[in-house]
């Protein structure tokens, strides 16, 4: 390998001709670092760091999706069905890493210019294109299940409900104890003010109640009120609601025997979705389910009609 010796000598010369690392290269490094910090701050400010709902190992509706730079690998799995899956999952990445480690011993010639080593250039470009293509495929592939957006207050309230063991005495959706009232049938109809007073001092608004005073903190009361209010599935829709449904929805959706089957059958929708979800969905389906072809009704129907309809739909529990 006599070019090694030549290279060392030539490099020595180039190095002597070159400039000092400080300040010339350091200046570029500093400007680059500054650019990166500025861009990073912009991303941090603009997008923040998302935090979804807490992990729920029992949730079977969630769409697992890796961070975008692992997406190509995730997508590659779909190309290798069944027994071959381990090829995409382990063999290909393993080969890739091995290739990277061995690269200096595979490409040993003196040529450095990418035009003079077409094999490795093409290999590199090909791999990049493949990763790019798979990543693109992964991004546009539809989610299997629609994303369900929950109000964070309601969600915090639900968690507190569990941690305070409220279900020891109360029923929601038919589950829980029978010492206190069934919350989705009774309490969700009360005003927020009433609920707040009740949480502070149960006897002050319902004399004779055996509910203990819990000394809840202010923000705990806030989230519990939001949670209880969200339970109001099916309560209080007007006679207008079925008419609104018949006029606006029945050409695509079915409830019971009425309606068409272009869109999903909504006869049991109330068992899966609460009122707030239904309202948001009617207003703009694309926000909750990007692949939906249903139009948004915000502006088409009045807010009162949408609320009414949402109550009506969340009452559809099949009974």
């Amino acid at each position, binding site marked *: 390998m006599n070019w090694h010796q030549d290279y060392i000598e030539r490099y020595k010369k180039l*190095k002597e001709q070159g400039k000092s*690392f400080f300040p010339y290269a350091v200046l*570029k*490094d500093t400007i680059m670092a500054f650019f*990166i910090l500025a861009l990073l701050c912009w991303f941090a400010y603009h997008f923040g760091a998302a935090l979804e709902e807490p992990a729920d190992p029992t949730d079977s509706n969630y769409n697992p999706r890796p961070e975008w730079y692992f997406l190509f690998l995730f997508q590659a799995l779909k190309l290798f069905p069944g027994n071959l899956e*381990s090829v995409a999952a*382990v063999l290909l990445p393993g080969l890739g890493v091995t290739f990277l480690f061995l690269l200096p011993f595979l490409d040993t010639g003196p*040529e450095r*210019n990418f035009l003079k080593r077409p094999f490795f250039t093409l290999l590199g470009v090909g791999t990049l294109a493949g990763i790019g293509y798979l990543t693109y495929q992964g991004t546009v592939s539809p989610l299997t299940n629609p994303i369900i957006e929950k109000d964070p207050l309601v969600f915090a309230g639900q968690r507190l409900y569990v941690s305070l063991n409220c279900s020891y005495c109360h029923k929601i959706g038919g589950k829980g104890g029978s010492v206190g009232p069934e919350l989705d049938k009774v309490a969700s109809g009360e005003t927020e003010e009433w609920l707040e007073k009740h949480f502070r001092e149960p006897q002050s608004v319902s004399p004779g109640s055996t509910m203990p005073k819990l000394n809840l903190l202010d923000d705990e009361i806030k989230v519990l009120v939001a949670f209880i209010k969200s339970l109001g599935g099916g309560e209080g829709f007007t006679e207008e609601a079925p008419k609104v449904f018949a006029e606006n929805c029945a050409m695509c959706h079915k409830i019971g025997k009425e309606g068409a089957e272009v869109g999903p059958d909504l006869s049991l929708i109330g068992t899966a979705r609460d009122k707030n979800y239904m309202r948001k969905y009617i207003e703009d389906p694309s926000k909750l389910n990007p692949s939906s072809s249903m139009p948004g009704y915000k502006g088409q129907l009045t807010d009162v009609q949408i609320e009414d309809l949402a109550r009506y739909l969340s009452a559809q529990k099949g009974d």
Partner: protein
Amino acid sequence: MKLLWEWMKSRLALAEIWNALFSRHVPEAEGLVGWLYTLGSASLFVFFIQVITGSLLAMNYVPSPDHAYDSIRFINEQVIFGKWIRALHHWGATFMVVVVSLHMLRVYFMGSYKYPREATWIVGVILFLLVMGFSFTGYLLPWDQKSYWATMVGANIASQTPAIGSYIAKILKGGDEMGAVTLTRFYAIHTLVLPGLILVAILIHLFLVVWHGISEPPQKNKGSDKKAGA
């Protein structure tokens, strides 16, 4: 003051270190190519940001399924600049992957991994894998739906390995199920094991870069070996 400076200069060999690190000459790299040469130091810079923001986040984070999520919410809502620090760490991770990959591509397409810099490249590949390890283990820590299920997918992919797959998955998860042990394991790897390893690898990498000298940009027209003879 001056005396102290002189003392430090001589005892810490500051002048010699300065000469070796900063006054060394580097081959000319003009224009756009010159900017490609900043990607390495940019990776180091992002690494520093990750160390700073990560250490701060660790002050308010609990690696337990009971409290992980709530402690993150505490950081988001109660700590001054908590949202910022978390967002910087989150996007810093993404930037790290991008910058390191670009750096790797620069070296790949310029053939900079060739003699005498083979070892620098190999340590670089190790650094790349460590960065991937960081992003995989860090992803789980918020313990929200996204992190839980993405990690589940990752563990399932690992379990596809022929013959030893189920053992790998068990070692990753710390058991048969994902849970408390998985979280503490990932936390320890993310904040203790990987930082230690990456620090050593960075030092070796930097030492090798300085020792062999940064590679010169490839010659455009003539074969580089011919030019050496001229």
